[in-house]
């Protein structure tokens, strides 16, 4: 009886979460904007911890709307050569034995204890107060230690002079770059480009929000599910977590 009760409560919670997520994403983008935008002139707050919950069961193999949105937002171009920048990529997985297939986006996991920050000799790699891991390209000397340290291969090196400066993030030859969690949009109270594109394409696979705020959509969702943190053995405290990865 109590099991059944807990089950129905869980169903109710997850349904409720899905409902509010839909409300928040569809007509209420503006509402979200103005509610969360940090006042101009204020630094990022340590009380906030931005993160993402990626539901792999909602992510469709072959769909790369998030990748394209990222490329457009940051003017990364559509080149896929060996030296092309790659801030986010789609990965298709197949489980050995069961043959279970998965598709998911991979990008900087915005660790609480980022190895890239630890190895950086100039202090260019850093974690902002609100948990977003960034490269200060003014200090980056292009040594690429961070690229070697990152267990997720999330970082790219800019090999060629950048001619297209129309992107939101300044980029330049000789520096390392990676997903910024669309910090320029987050500071304005908007959603990261990939999250927006995913919900526009009707998949709702990426949920973005403040992990420190118990009232946020992502925190509520995490209470009702058990997300997987990639390379949890390394204890990096990743800000990005995944649903549907556990072996069945």
């Amino acid at each position, binding site marked *: 009886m109590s099991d059944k009760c807990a089950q129905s409560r869980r169903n109710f919670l997850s349904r409720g979460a899905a409902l509010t997520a839909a409300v928040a994403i569809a007509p209420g983008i503006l509402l979200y904007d103005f509610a969360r935008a940090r006042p*101009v002139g204020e630094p990022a707050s340590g009380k906030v911890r931005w993160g993402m919950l990626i539901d792999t069961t909602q992510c469709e193999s072959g769909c790369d709307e998030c990748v394209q949105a990222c490329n457009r937002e940051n003017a990364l171009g559509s080149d896929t050569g060996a030296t092309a920048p790659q801030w986010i990529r789609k990965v298709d997985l197949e489980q050995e034995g069961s043959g279970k297939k998965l598709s998911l986006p991979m990008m900087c996991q915005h660790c609480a204890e980022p190895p890239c920050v630890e190895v950086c000799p100039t202090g260019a790699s850093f974690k*902002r107060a609100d948990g977003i891991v960034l490269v200060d390209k*003014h200090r980056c000397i292009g040594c690429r230690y961070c690229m070697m340290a990152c267990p997720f291969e999330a970082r790219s090196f800019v090999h060629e002079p950048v001619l297209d400066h129309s992107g939101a993030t300044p980029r330049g030859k000789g520096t390392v770059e990676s997903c910024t969690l669309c910090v320029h949009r987050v500071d304005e109270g908007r959603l990261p480009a990939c999250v927006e594109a995913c919900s526009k394409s009707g998949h709702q696979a990426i949920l973005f929000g403040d992990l420190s705020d118990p009232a946020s959509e992502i925190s509520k969702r995490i209470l009702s599910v058990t997300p997987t943190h990639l390379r949890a053995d390394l204890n990096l405290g990743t800000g990005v977590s995944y649903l549907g990865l556990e072996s069945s």
Partner: protein
Amino acid sequence: MFVGMPMKVWRFWWYLMGTSCLVWTMSLQAAVPPLDLDIGLGGHCVDDPQYMRLNHMKLLLKQRDETVRQGIRGGKYSLAKCVDCHASKVNHSVLGTDRNFCQGCHVYASVKIDCFECHSSSPTVHTLRRQAAVESHKE
């Protein structure tokens, strides 16, 4: 040649040298034309123009660190704002010719400028949108 030269002649020699140097420097200054810059939209600068001429580099450096590392947005001294006001109406950029705002003055002063290897030298959709967002917050 100078050995045994009377003091009077010696002094006159130095006077001649000094004056010719002065005349030469003045003629040099006259040869360099005054700066003729395309200031784009122009209008009121965020601070006193003379102060900005002398200190813009320090102000930009300070604000860039605060923005990148601490996430402080909407500061007064932003490179994007320089570009938005001072991009030429001809080529929509602060670079390109020696009349363009940033390039013109930096060529004149012979100081290398490397901001625009990464930053946009033209007003972009993103900077315009950012400005609009900042304005809407102020209201």
